[in-house]
């Protein structure tokens, strides 16, 4: 049987794969998976005929590949050492590690948790009442083909549940490692984060690949924020250049909740990051920050959707990109302010710095407003390195290469400077600096 990524393959392979997926004893989940597969059957893989996939055509790359369903058992290099090398003080975090879509208890290190805090791998938490209640409710299989595929085929991921009033002290650092050696693979990862009233957590989703052949990571994160809760969420994409990443984060925010979402993306042959939030109740706040850095033939596609459903909500969105080589970046940001969402304060900005003439940027900020008493703004700018500024550096004895680095850091570093977390800041600084080290 050919393993080529076709819709038929995923429909036909399911019967055989089902037995290997977690939750065999959960009838509700089996039902969800089958329904999701049905949705995928209806939708098929997205094509560039779809407005939201206009500039990301999978037909010539991902869908031409043969990816195994097997999850190779690989012992990766010491993950803790890797994290330290990347600038994380791992002693100050709960670390969870998934390798090729499977949880690795031995590579993970969860600190002692107070009552009312659940940090678990999802596959082992499927009998949990909260999982039953929320899984698939925020990130519906009906809307997106990859989300449907994810629901049908997911193997594992993070489950975080905080009871009311719980303030989690350490961040949860979740590593999703692809290390498949010679076998091409796919991982369908599913995360579920449910925060009770006035609780607070910091979560880092960190994707990387090492010693790999081609692979696909299809990750879906669902976030439910109860009244007054705060989630500080950072997604770090350091996939291998042979990797394809399609990820979707979807949040539902209740009254006065705060969702801080950051996306730092540097890796992958092709990366698609979708971030959606619904400001479902009044006084909810959303901050969406992002930085994508690309070079060579990389393709990085960011699509965000902020749904202002209720009055007195804020959303502040800032995405920046630096593009070198022949890479392509897409930013498609949509803010919808519905009729009932009076006193909305919504701001969106996308700025791109092109380091080469062959890099391409498609920036598409969109704002639709149906309420009359709102403050909304959006803007987009794409420019090249300022030659006048470069000459100013050079005229003071600083080499052109160093001047470029300083100017790129001045541009991109803003997104790092805005991060309050002491745990993240050194690593993200390094993230940007390491990228510049390899840029032309």
């Amino acid at each position: 049987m050919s393993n080529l990524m076709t819709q038929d393959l995923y429909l036909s392979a399911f019967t055989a794969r089902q037995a290997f997926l977690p939750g065999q004893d959960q009838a509700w989940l089996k039902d969800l998976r089958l329904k999701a597969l049905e949705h995928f059957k209806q939708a098929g893989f997205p094509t560039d005929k779809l407005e939201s996939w206009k500039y990301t055509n999978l037909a010539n790359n991902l869908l031409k590949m043969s990816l195994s369903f097997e999850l190779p058992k690989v012992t990766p290099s010491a993950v803790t050492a890797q994290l330290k090398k990347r600038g994380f003080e791992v002693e100050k975090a709960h670390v969870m590690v998934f390798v090729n879509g499977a949880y690795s208890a031995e590579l993970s290190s969860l600190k002692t948790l107070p009552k009312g805090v659940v940090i678990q791998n999802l596959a082992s938490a499927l009998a949990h009442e909260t999982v039953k209640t929320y899984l698939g409710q925020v990130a519906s299989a009906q809307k997106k083909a990859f989300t449907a595929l994810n629901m049908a085929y997911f193997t594992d991921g993070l489950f975080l549940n905080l009871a009311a009033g719980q303030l989690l002290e350490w961040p949860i650092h979740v590593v999703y490692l692809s290390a498949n050696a010679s076998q091409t693979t796919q991982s369908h990862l599913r995360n579920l984060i449910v925060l009770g009233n006035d609780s607070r957590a910091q979560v880092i989703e960190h994707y990387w690949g090492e010693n790999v052949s081609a692979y696909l990571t299809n990750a879906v994160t669902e976030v439910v924020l109860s009244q007054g809760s705060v989630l500080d969420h950072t997604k770090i994409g350091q996939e291998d250049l042979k990797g394809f990443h399609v990820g979707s984060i979807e949040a539902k925010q209740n009254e006065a909740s705060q969702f801080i979402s950051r996306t730092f993306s540097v890796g992958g042959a092709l990366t698609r990051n979708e971030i959606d939030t619904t400001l479902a109740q009044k006084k909810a706040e959303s901050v969406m920050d992002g930085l994508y850095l690309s070079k060579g033939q990389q393709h990085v596609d960011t699509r965000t959707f902020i749904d202002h459903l209720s009055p007195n909500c804020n959303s502040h969105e800032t995405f920046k990109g630096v593009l070198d080589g022949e890479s392509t970046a897409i930013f498609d940001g949509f803010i919808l302010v519905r009729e009932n969402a009076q006193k909305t304060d919504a701001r969106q900005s996308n700025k791109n710095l092109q380091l080469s003439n062959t890099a391409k940027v498609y920036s598409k900020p969109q704002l639709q407003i149906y309420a009359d008493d709102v403050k909304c703004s959006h803007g987009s700018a794409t420019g090249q390195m300022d030659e006048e500024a470069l000459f100013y550096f050079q005229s003071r004895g600083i080499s052109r290469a160093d001047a470029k680095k300083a100017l790129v850091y001045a541009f991109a570093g803003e997104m790092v400077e805005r991060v309050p977390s002491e745990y993240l800041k050194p690593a993200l600084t390094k993230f940007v600096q390491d990228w510049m080290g390899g840029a032309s």
Partner: protein
Amino acid sequence: MLVIKGLKAKVEDKQILNGIDLEIRSGEVHAIMGPNGSGKSTLAHVLSGRPGYEITGGEVTLDGKDLLSLSPEDRARAGVFLAFQYPVEIPGVNNTYFLKAALNAVRKSKGEEELDAMDFLELVKAKLKPLKMDEAMLQRAVNEGFSGGEKKKNEILQMAVLEPKLGILDETDSGLDIDALKVVADGVNALRSKNRSFLVVTHYQRLLDYIVPDQVHVLAKGKIIKTGGKELALELEEKGYGWLTGEKEEAKR
């Protein structure tokens, strides 16, 4: 120190410099004056290696070393400093970082040890005082939101830190009120020494009341048409450039 022979340069298809000959000896201050469009700023830019100019003839040496073949950063390391007419604003780059990177790049090229943060801060603080500059500006982004006077003082501060052999002042007096002009001129005068020369490019004589030149050259249509002592500047102030170029100059401002 600086020897310019038959220097010709053009921008796109327009010939701007038509054969400049000039020699500045160690410790001397030379002023270049001339009407708008005479090529004075072009001369300053060409010496510092600004891109966009094509050298079509002539040579320039600094202490015998060919300047024109060097990159802008190598000219700076060799001791050329251009004080910009319009200093560039660089958001996101801290002034201290910029100054320190510049000084250490220059030191490194001379085989000197790079300064650490503490030593550097001590050095730069001492240079701030004569320019009546506040320490707080070290923490600001380079020139961002600086007033005209602050920007020009910042240029002189950079020069004081880098200690070049040749300081080129490109219309440093433009946009300055009289108080700022005095501070900037004092800053320059404090840097005068027998091992350092200056080329002062200016449209007006006013600056030369404060930075008194050894020689004044008048540039017109890309050539030096007259050279004299400091009194030549006064004469120009009185008679206008038309006196030398034979053209009617716009009303004196």
